[in-house]
């Protein structure tokens, strides 16, 4: 992809954060400098906003809140998707165009989760309207092509490494596995009535992890999933990871670690060999009188699994060393809580 000099897309390391202050910020991860800020809300009053319709056609509507719930970079690093209330906006990473180049509208309520097929052919989303959708990225069609409906608002969607099965977690506590080819679907409910907040499968497709509002982290072994085989889930373990809501879980790129983020101000890193705790990354204050500094909302590992970036509601994102738990960098600039991030790090060699 031909990236313009000095644009976010021209850097092999891309870090983006977003949250409640209506901006998406891009950072130079190793120095902590903010290199680009994109206003997520269409600000009509700003004198710098270019007039006229946006590319892609149609007026841009963003009434009622422009918070960003989820961020995801396309696999070819050409765009970033920001999912919010009733829309998904794609911003160009290879230019400094402040406006979204594609705007998917016409969905109701918050989109809570977004992701891509590894070849960039289609995008998947999940939202509060109880639907998971597939969107064709190759056409300019702004409607989704497929829907999978469940009975409760969807919090998280995750794509199996086989690129053909979608895992959906909803607020009723159910986890659905949707076979995209056959439309076959299965449910499992690790803890009834407790909202599932995040699901993730490791790159080797050996494990699936899910965290819920009880603070528990459930892990299954995965088998099958190739060719005609349907993926089988065998319960492996339950980790009582946090004593407050668990908000996010992520496996490291080398599959040796699992990170869980929580409202208890910590992100815990577990070894997948035995699911013991390796490191606790905490933003708790040393002052016993001080109330919570903020929730840990999201996290992402670096390409070699040595570092992890976290987003928290104290307006900061931080880079930590996974092994020592030391804070290496702070990314400061957001004026409100940072609830999601996207990290694309390249590996050498």
């Amino acid at each position, binding site marked *: 992809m031909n990236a313009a000099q000095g644009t976010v897309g021209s850097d092999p390391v891309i870090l983006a954060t977003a949250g409640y202050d209506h901006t998406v910020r891009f950072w130079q991860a*190793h*120095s902590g400098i903010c290199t680009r800020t*994109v206003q997520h809300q269409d600000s009509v009053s700003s004198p*710098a906003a270019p007039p006229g319709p946006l590319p892609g056609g149609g007026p841009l509507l963003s009434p009622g809140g422009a918070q960003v719930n989820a961020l995801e970079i396309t696999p070819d690093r050409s765009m970033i998707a920001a999912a919010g209330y009733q829309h998904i906006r794609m911003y160009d990473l290879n230019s400094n165009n402040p406006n979204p180049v594609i705007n998917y509208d016409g969905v109701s309520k918050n989109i809570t989760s977004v992701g891509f097929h590894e070849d960039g052919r289609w995008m998947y989303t999940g939202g509060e309207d109880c639907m998971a959708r597939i969107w064709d990225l190759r056409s300019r069609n702004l409607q989704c092509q497929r829907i999978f409906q469940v009975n409760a608002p969807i919090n998280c969607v995750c794509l199996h490494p086989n690129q053909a099965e979608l895992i959906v977690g909803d607020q009723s506590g159910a986890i659905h596995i949707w076979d995209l080819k056959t439309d076959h679907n299965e449910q499992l409910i690790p803890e009834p009535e407790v909202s599932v907040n995040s699901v993730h499968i490791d790159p080797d497709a050996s494990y699936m992890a899910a965290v819920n509002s009880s603070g528990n982290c459930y892990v299954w072994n995965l088998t099958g*999933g190739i060719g005609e085989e349907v993926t089988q889930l065998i319960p492996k373990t339950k980790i009582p990871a946090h004593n407050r809501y668990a908000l996010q879980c992520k496996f490291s790129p080398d599959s040796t670690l699992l990170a869980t983020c929580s409202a208890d101000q910590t992100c815990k890193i577990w070894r997948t060999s035995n699911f013991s705790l390796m490191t606790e990354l905490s933003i708790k204050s040393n002052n016993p009188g001080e109330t919570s500094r903020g929730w840990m909302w999201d996290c992402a590992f670096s390409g*070699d699994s040595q570092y992890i970036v976290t987003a928290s509601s104290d307006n900061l994102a931080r880079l930590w060393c996974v092994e020592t738990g030391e804070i290496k960098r702070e990314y400061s600039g957001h004026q409100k809580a940072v609830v999601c991030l996207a990290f694309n790090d390249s590996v050498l060699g």
Partner: protein
Amino acid sequence: MDLSKQCNLNWSRIKIVHCTKLDKILCIQNMNHLDSVFGFDFLFCLFVWVSLSAVFVVLGTVSMEQDGEKSHVTSDDTGMCEMVLIDHDVDLEKFNPSSTYGDSGSETQGSNGETQGYVYSQSVDITSSWDFGIRRRSNTAEELSSLFEKKNFRVKSPCSGKQSILSVRLEQCPLQLNNPFNEYSKFDGKGHVGTTATKKIDVYLPLHASQDKLQPMTVVTIANAKVHDLIGLICWQYTSEGREPKLNDNVNAYCLHIAEDDGEVDTDFPPLDSNEPIHKFGFSTLALVEKYSSPGLAAKQSLFVRINAAHGFSLIQVDSMKVTMKDILQKALKRRKGSQRGSGPQYRLEKQSEPNVPVDLDCTLESQSTLEFCLVRENSSRGEEISEEDPQIDIATVQDMLSSHHYKSFKVSMIHRLRFTTDVQLGISGDKVEIDPVTNQKASTKFWIKQKPISIDSELLCACDLAEEKSPSHAIFKLTYLSNHDYKHLYFESDAATVNEIVLKVNYILESRASTARADYFAQKQRKLSRRTSFSFQKEKKSGQQ
């Protein structure tokens, strides 16, 4: 549902609900027929579509069935999405495409070779754009199958524990510039280009000996920042860029002045008001200046040792606390007129608080923990009548004291901000200190300070200290006084002798008056000093910035 009716209504292909597969096929066929009949009468189509879609939006249902032989097209209330449940049993060989069908050939022909009947997933296509031709969906079932084919995820390049680019960069750049001004980074407008109003400013930085040529630093701020925020942003960027020398951690130590394009600071104007928004000012060239950039040396408190003697006291100036008591005694004796070494009566020093205990002359002043002593003749004690042998001693002391209260005027230079000086006449007496401008200034266009005469009552004087003694011809002292509940500092310069004389004189007055203003001032200084030593430099991050 009556098929013909459905077809009439559905010419715009909004919805088919719960048809059997056959019905569906027929519908499609009929609709195409309709299409060719009506041609492309745009406005008519538009009108009908709008009215019908209104009807169907109201009637919208969503359904999903996974079993059975039905194929369903469903749509939600917005009419923007649809889903087709693929029914593998559709056998399109039964379907006879008519000639009006258009370019269907290429898409149906592939069905014959497939092991299972592929689904003609190309259902009615709802678009929000004004497109009324039949739009063949590009996803045929064949393509759908390939779109959602399971990939063999086990075949992938091994993750061989190589480093990521981030790790490499972190190694090369080990320190996050722990920037004390991070909270101001949010005013950086560089990332906001095109979205928010920003202002580009060239800032000249404090000039230092190593720089012979001034080069401004370009800063882009968001326009609604205040001057105070801009100063913070400038400090942040300066520190981020690793410039030397390091700035004072405190943003309040700096102010912004308007500057010429070549970097010369325009002293005709006072510094920009911290609270004003930056967009109020049209200036694009500014200079960052330290406030009160006169002397810069924290004026050390002049050290005076008070030597009490019969009927009065003397002030002996010392350089440091490390001076020996022997030196002090010698200085005290020297002050006395007519004293000769080795001759005359011997004297000893006692701490004022410890009568009859002679001070060990080899000890330092520091070890005494006091600055007040008493000069006592050997073999006598304080307050004894002075013998007639040395009648002049006390007179000297008294004279010192009295003369300090006499009015004397000095011609000195008063130092303003930016080292700009004015000539003044300093009149000092026991009652007050007066500062009057000398009117015969050299014609100077930069004379922007209308120096008003200042009169300070002695009761309000707090301190007078030597600030700098560069050479016999150049010394600076600082005068501190209380004005409206604030401590104000004035700096003056002159030759060393004059400066020392003034400092001594004022200190005599201060000592003898022992005013409350002075006592309060020292108490406050002491508090500040003790606070500073316990101050922790680990800044806590604030949550909820403004």
